[in-house]
């Protein structure tokens, strides 16, 4: 597969591992955060940690848009779905996220009309085919996915489709990163920047991290070599005393982002004054809602939702895992009460959640490749 296989070449990985190891100062430890569920997934799926010396730790941040949705919002979505006149459409990852009374999957088993879609556009198809029912699309995702929701809304508007609306749970990445940076619990040396979010917002929004907090940022692609190269670039910056924003994923990410996409978002959505993030609490201007102009496509305006704030189950430590303070296996219920089959929290349910990735792929004794094992030795 072109643009994929070349970036999965093991020989080049060994070379990068050696270069990364060579940049490790003896006795020093390095902590990099990756703020993108796709990166967490790749790291575990390809066994990337085998290529990194023990001195380097990768911390998983709140980059999984499914993982950060608080239980109360799930309950609101379930409330909408359970209306007999509503067909709820959702991406696959949302289907098994537990609310106070089960997940979409459970509700589906009990007879609620919830349908999995690959693209938000598929919801329009369902709406056209079912004129006597109302289709609500559960819109989730960072800025990567918001443009697709926006374009879908614009298309529905152009077609005059009257039985379609969006339950908008899009969140934005920069406020989350800032919350992490301001958190006293965490000492990070640099960031592996989100890849696909950056195709929309570009690389400029990360400049404050390098400039004001002195941490290097490398925007990274999703293939294993992309991530290894990005870690190499971070280590190089640190060894040279630089803190800049660099774009490793330049084949896909334009420095200035995608203006058409940003315009589509701006046309159809606006920032909420504040939004609750699982584990991070309330963050201002961190999420999107449908604009007044498109009120007829805003599920929250068309239907009433309970809007109750639900506390996470006491046993759940998703918040700390999302902030990178706890590693998945350090959570008290990881792997015993909380498993992919019986998830208590979102970190375990979403395929991009740190706990799911670790449980499904990473859980084993680790053998480092020789280049990585040699790190820090003269």
């Amino acid at each position, binding site marked *: 597969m072109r643009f994929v296989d070349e970036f999965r070449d093991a020989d080049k990985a060994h070379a990068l591992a050696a270069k990364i190891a060579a940049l490790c100062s003896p006795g020093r430890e390095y902590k990099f955060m990756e703020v993108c569920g796709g990166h967490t997934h790749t790291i575990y799926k390809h066994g990337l940690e085998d290529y990194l010396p023990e001195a380097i730790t990768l911390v998983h941040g709140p980059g999984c848009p499914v993982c950060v949705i608080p239980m109360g919002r799930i309950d609101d979505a379930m409330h909408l779905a359970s209306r007999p006149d509503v067909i709820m459409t959702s991406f*696959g990852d949302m289907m098994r996220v537990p609310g106070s009374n089960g997940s979409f999957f459970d509700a589906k088993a009990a007879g609620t009309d919830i349908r999995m879609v690959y693209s938000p556009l598929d919801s329009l198809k369902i709406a056209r085919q079912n004129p006597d029912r109302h289709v609500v699309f559960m819109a989730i995702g960072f800025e990567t996915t918001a443009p697709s929701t926006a374009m879908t809304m614009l298309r529905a508007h152009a077609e005059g489709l009257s039985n379609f609306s969006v339950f908008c749970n899009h969140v934005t990445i920069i406020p989350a990163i800032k919350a992490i940076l301001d958190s006293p619990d965490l000492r990070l040396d640099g960031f592996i920047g989100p890849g696909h979010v950056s195709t929309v917002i570009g690389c400029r929004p990360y400049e404050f991290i390098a400039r004001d907090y002195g941490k290097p940022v490398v925007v990274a692609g999703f293939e294993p070599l992309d991530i290894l190269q990005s870690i190499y670039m971070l280590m190089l910056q640190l060894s040279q005393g630089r803190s800049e924003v660099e774009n490793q994923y330049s084949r896909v990410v334009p420095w200035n982002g995608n203006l058409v996409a940003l315009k589509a978002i701006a046309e159809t959505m606006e920032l909420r004054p504040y939004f609750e993030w699982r584990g991070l609490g309330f963050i201002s201007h961190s999420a999107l809602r449908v604009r007044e102009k498109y009120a007829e496509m805003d599920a929250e305006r068309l239907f009433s939702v309970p809007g109750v704030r639900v506390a996470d189950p006491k046993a759940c430590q998703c918040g700390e895992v999302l902030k990178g303070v706890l590693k998945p296996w350090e959570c008290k219920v990881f792997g015993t009460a909380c498993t992919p089959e019986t998830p208590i929290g979102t970190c375990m349910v979403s395929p991009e959640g740190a706990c799911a990735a670790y449980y499904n792929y990473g859980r084993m004794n680790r053998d480092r490749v020789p280049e990585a094992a040699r790190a820090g030795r003269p």
Partner: protein
Amino acid sequence: MTADQVGHQADPGWIADALREHDHAQRPESPEGRTRLPVTDREQQVLDRIDRARRRRPRVREERVTMSHGAGGKATQTLIEAVFLETFRNPLLEPLEDAAELRILGGRLALTTDSYVVSPLFFPGGDIGDLAVNGTVNDLSVSGATPLYLTAGFILEEGFPVAQLTQVAESMRKAADAAGVCIVTGDTKVVQRGKADGCYINTAGVGVIARDVTVGVARAQPGDAIIVSGPIGDHGITIMLARGELDIEADVCSDTAPLNGLIAGLLGAVPGVRAMRDATRGGVATILNEIARAADVGVLVSEDDIPVRPEVRGACELLGIDPMYVACEGRIVAVVPGDSADAAVRALRDHPLGADAAVIGHVVADQPGIVRLRTAFGGTRIVDLLVGDPLPRIC
């Protein structure tokens, strides 16, 4: 902690147990007071705890059946063990292999049953009738039996076109002839419109096991080679695309085929075959986990060595699915002694249905119960049992 705080899981007791275990493990016994264990040791403690949790008696926590229970993964396994095995418990059922082995009249018979609920009924490469005959023949063949006779029970939806039913029957006849088996008895029921999606088929099959053949996944041993008879995932992807919901076109077709001839060739060349399994729902990954669990061994396979057609790989990448969990309908996974691997692959490749047979990995002694994959990239990761249901109603 109350049930409400825990959410929909009605039984909070097991969470309290897990927390107690965790707190107990956290306190390292040391005369000087609290010692910081090295990171890897702490992680290992957690992994051990997880391993113990996984080996506990299965219990179905859901109140209602969900599509996961039909996916062939973890939920299916739990349902079968907790409900059917518990209730029917007898030594003939316990092995939970593809067919039951019965000792009758001084010989051994294999008996199997299957139901087919595939949607759509007709797809590139075959139809529900082909699946029904081939699937049953294969379940018998992987048990070491020569398949002989099949039953065919039909549940038909009111309004189902007779012409389509005839087509299905004709497919079954052709498939039976190709496999050398005979459909000797059956049943027909009709249910109201809306209750059977056209047509469901249930089969039973019986065959004779040769005197010197003994196979079963529990017989796998460290050093054994694991072989797959051809490219994986063709059937599952074909079905998903044939549903037409994803607007994807690709040149794939189902691999449904009777494998008794292929298997006879394998057993002839390698009489010491330890186990064979039909890779259907849940895919190759499910079988590897069944081997690891039944024989309490580790399994290590190599991503580079697993044959996957480019179109299947492309569709899987597009949809975010792992081909290892995608169903096949004409592939076997065989476990053979390490030194017989070459002979086994040769025997399979001699047969048209095994042209792309390959060794994909080995049974190992370390990390029993766990299936690991060496990625194309050179790292290692776990291949766990499927959770959830990426591709419903595949077979």
